[in-house]
């Protein structure tokens, strides 16, 4: 067990390190000369040279990387070129809508996906299975921004049930702010339920073929009890991974939906940063989002070993 934990941790650390290298290299390739960008057109060559030394940009790349990583490990992601504040502060200010949106969407996706996937597996081959599987495939073919725009036109503009866009000021009550998240969460939840349906179906089908399900049937247990106690309990284990990773991917992947509904979230922050070439913000956001993904992945894996002792034994 201890060696499994150690190996898993080492693996995650290695991936994190690679993520840091990728983010650093990507943004360094991009920025060309960040100093010229920072100082604007009026800067003289002497100004640029002075600031280059000030920011350590005259040092070789590996040294720059080490310096940057040192800062990052102390929780310093640098300052935004345009927002007049540290990147960490900008991220924290934008975290609320993004985290709520990701959480609600995964919740909706699970609420739709797990029952539908289970039904599809139990009625495998039946027309209900075919309809559900077709719907799952449809969900993976719809662009989120397009569905978002249609929902907005219908539920907000035409019916006026919900606010169309924005998030309200920080001093509006939480309840009102959350209303702005209903439509975007529905869009992302519906589309992501496609993946959950497919996974639940495959997972339940796997378990239905196990010997212990046959044994349960042979000893005369009812189908409902078999499904609840023997099948679902086991099928849900791999689903934890999928749900966890979906949550992680949604934190950065909701960029498009956030833009459609004009939510002041992390995705919106990064899109604006890209349009203005605000490299410290791009760098910091990419690092944090990929970091969250790796950590959730690790957490889910560890949870897995707690829930399912077989994995511990196999890995040891």
């Amino acid at each position, binding site marked *: 067990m201890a060696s499994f934990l150690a190996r898993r941790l080492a693996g995650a650390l290695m*991936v994190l390190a690679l993520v840091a290298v990728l983010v650093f290299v990507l943004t360094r390739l991009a920025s060309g000369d960040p100093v010229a960008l920072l100082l604007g057109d009026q800067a003289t060559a002497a100004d640029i040279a002075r600031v280059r030394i000030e920011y350590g940009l005259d040092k070789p790349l590996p040294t720059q990387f080490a310096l940057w990583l040192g800062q990052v490990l102390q929780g310093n992601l640098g300052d935004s070129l345009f927002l007049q504040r540290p990147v960490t502060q900008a991220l924290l200010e934008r975290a609320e809508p993004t985290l709520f949106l990701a959480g609600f969407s995964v919740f909706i996706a699970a609420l739709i996906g797990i029952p539908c996937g289970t039904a599809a597996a139990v009625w495998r081959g039946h027309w209900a299975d075919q309809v559900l599987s077709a719907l799952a*495939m449809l969900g993976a073919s*719809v662009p989120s*921004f397009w569905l978002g*725009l249609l929902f907005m036109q219908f539920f907000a503009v035409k019916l006026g049930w919900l606010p169309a866009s924005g998030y309200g000021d920080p001093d509006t009550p939480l309840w009102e702010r959350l209303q702005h998240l209903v439509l975007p969460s529905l869009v992302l939840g519906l589309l992501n339920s496609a993946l959950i349906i497919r996974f639940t179906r495959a997972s339940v089908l796997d378990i239905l073929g196990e010997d212990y399900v046959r044994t349960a049937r042979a000893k005369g247990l009812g189908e409902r009890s078999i499904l609840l106690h023997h099948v679902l309990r086991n099928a849900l284990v791999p689903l934890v991974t999928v749900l966890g990773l979906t949550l992680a991917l949604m934190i950065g*992947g909701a*960029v498009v939906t956030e833009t459609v509904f004009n939510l002041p979230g992390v995705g919106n922050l990064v899109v604006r940063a*890209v*349009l203005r070439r605000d490299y410290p913000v791009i760098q910091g956001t990419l690092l944090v989002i990929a970091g969250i*993904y790796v950590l959730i992945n690790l957490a889910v894996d560890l949870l897995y070993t707690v829930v399912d002792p077989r994995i511990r034994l196999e890995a040891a």
Partner: protein
Amino acid sequence: MNPTWKILRRLFARRVVLAATLLLLAVVVVAVLVPWLSSADPSAMDISARLHKPSGEHWAGTDELGRDVALRIVHGARYSLLIGGVTSVGAVLLGTLLGLLAGYFRRLDAPLMRLVDAMMSFPDILLGIALVAILGPSLWNVVLALVIVYTPRVARVVRAATLVLRELLFVDAARALGVRTPWILWRHILPNLASPILVQLTFIFAYAILCEAGLSFLGVGVPPEIPTWGTMIAGSLDYADRALWVILYPGLAIVLTALSLQILGDGVRDLLDPKLRKAA
């Protein structure tokens, strides 16, 4: 009977798969032939016909500049299919190479796969945005960015399948007979990867079309003057409340194409070699 023919017959025995394939063929044929079929210019503006409803003259209505939406969808298909096609082929070629190396050579496995893990910890669209920001927004840079985004996915699938194949008897036999490693990979492993690779090809084709549309929507994709399905929706966004058709029909084109591609991919997956079914 010819074995290829036999496989195709099994594939198309499911009518959904046949319908999806026919639809895709139709889209491809129309997209390729449209310059010869009609001389109408998709960017021809007609200010007197702004935001007209769908009618006999304009099947899908007109947009805010009086351009025919249906005509633009057909021309958009050329670019959307080009982007999806080149991206999927590029990602599959690169990903297969990496996956083969990682799956066959134990020493390369860990480093390559950690790199794949690292790249896959960025959400597709976010990595796409960052890469386009670096490369600059142009048609081919979007394609390059999407190839980089989807290569790790192919590499992971191909590696998993190669790990299984590597241990099979016929590969052992080839090795024992002294067949050189490159030839084993080319002649014995690669042909058996055909099905998972084909599946990935169709899925990535669909994802690339969706992702390009998302990037264009965010304004960090293909330049707006090129009519892809994504840029069409992005460009006419502000008129959606008065003229829903300007975003409805290009979106439907995306949905139908992506859905058909995935149905085809799923059909191919069902024909997979049972030995690989678990791995893929």
